[in-house]
């Protein structure tokens, strides 16, 4: 993480104020004996390095390469992802939804920012933003256009609003021209956005 963000941000004054405010909170909580700053350091490092869409990409690549795993993933994503051993213990209620030529799935949380952290990491700013949360449920094609994505006019669009503790990950379609690819190579095609439903996987020629 960089520490010189105050200088190059348009919101420099807000950042400075927030920095002081959060630092003061941490001081109070540490002095009260409620938190251990060293534990915070470890947690932050995990969010920056261990947890992220690379885990979800491995899950998708495995589903593309292994039909039995794909079936298990659709049946019970929590259990299937656990079986890969990427994550120490996979939390409950993970649900994988499959895109097809006729059906495109998209994930949103209109009420807050629910997102499958364990497989995708922390959500990006746009996912938590008012434009996405307001429009995903009534204008998904317009939202996809903001991402530069146009779907066939006759494709069905299914929006999943994450209004409980169930969490969703999109299983995108495997790109053509990837026959015989290893899981590792396939995983390089899988973007975060294609697992949220706001993008498609990279094309094979994009990673050549």
């Amino acid at each position, binding site marked *: 993480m960089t520490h010189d963000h105050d200088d190059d941000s348009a919101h420099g004054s807000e950042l400075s104020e927030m920095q002081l405010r959060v630092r003061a909170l941490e001081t109070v909580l540490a002095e009260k004996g*409620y938190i251990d700053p060293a*534990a915070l350091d470890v947690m932050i490092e995990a969010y920056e390095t261990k947890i992220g869409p690379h885990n979800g990409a491995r899950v998708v690549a495995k589903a593309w390469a292994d039909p039995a795993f794909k079936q298990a993933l659709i049946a019970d994503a929590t259990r299937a992802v656990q079986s890969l051993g990427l994550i120490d213990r996979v*939390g409950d209620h993970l649900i994988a939804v499959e895109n097809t030529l006729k059906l495109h799935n998209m994930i949103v949380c209109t009420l807050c920012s629910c997102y499958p952290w364990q497989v995708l990491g922390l959500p990006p*700013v746009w996912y938590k933003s008012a434009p996405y949360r307001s429009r995903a449920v009534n204008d998904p094609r317009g939202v996809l256009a903001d991402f530069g994505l146009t779907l066939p006019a006759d494709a069905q*669009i299914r929006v999943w609003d994450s209004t*409980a*503790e169930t969490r969703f990950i999109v299983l995108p379609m495997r790109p053509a021209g990837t026959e015989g690819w290893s899981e590792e190579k396939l995983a390089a095609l899988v973007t975060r956005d294609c697992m949220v439903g706001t993008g498609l996987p990279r094309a094979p020629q994009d990673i050549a």
Partner: protein
Amino acid sequence: MDGIHDMGGMHGFGKVEPEKNEAVFHAEWEARCLALNRAMAAIGAWNIDEGRAGIEELPPAVYLTSSYYGKWALRLENLLVKFGLVGADEIAAGHALRAGKPLAGKLGVAEVPVTLTRGAFARPAQAAARFKVGDRVRAKNIHPPMHTRLPRYARSRVGVIEAIRGCHVFPDSSALGAGENPQWLYTVLFEGRELWGDNTDPTLTASIEAFEPYLEAA
């Protein structure tokens, strides 16, 4: 509550603006803020629903003009005071002025991995599920003034039970500190036109995850 957080279907917020190669955190304080919130939740200072309610109870103008982690910082301050863990005078001073309350114990380095795993919210059923897959249901026209997970756009609308997700902690009770009160959870699928009217994209369907008390037979 019918708050500003319940944004599904609202107009006027403009385009979605994805950021290329977005960093996990945009400033160090965002990371500290996230970790402080999670460290306090991890020791049971409040539950996940009380935490969400803490964000929703921010004044609408503050909600809309604060950044995401800015809201988390305000929520943390408010909940610390609400639950009597820190005094407003201590937050203002930036230092503890009194000893802390005894809690279950602070989160140590060794316990961090546990916080990275999502909690389990499924609970033993208290009664048989009232609905089955394929049933037509109407989301109730209810407007509770406190935390609820039934979005406004679905209320009074008719959908179909697509899946039964088991019996889960009921956020409407949990957010009040009134116990888990487990309820059946369903995926309810709506036609776009049922939600948004005749001019809606005919290829659109949308689902919510709805607790049984939100639903009635249709």
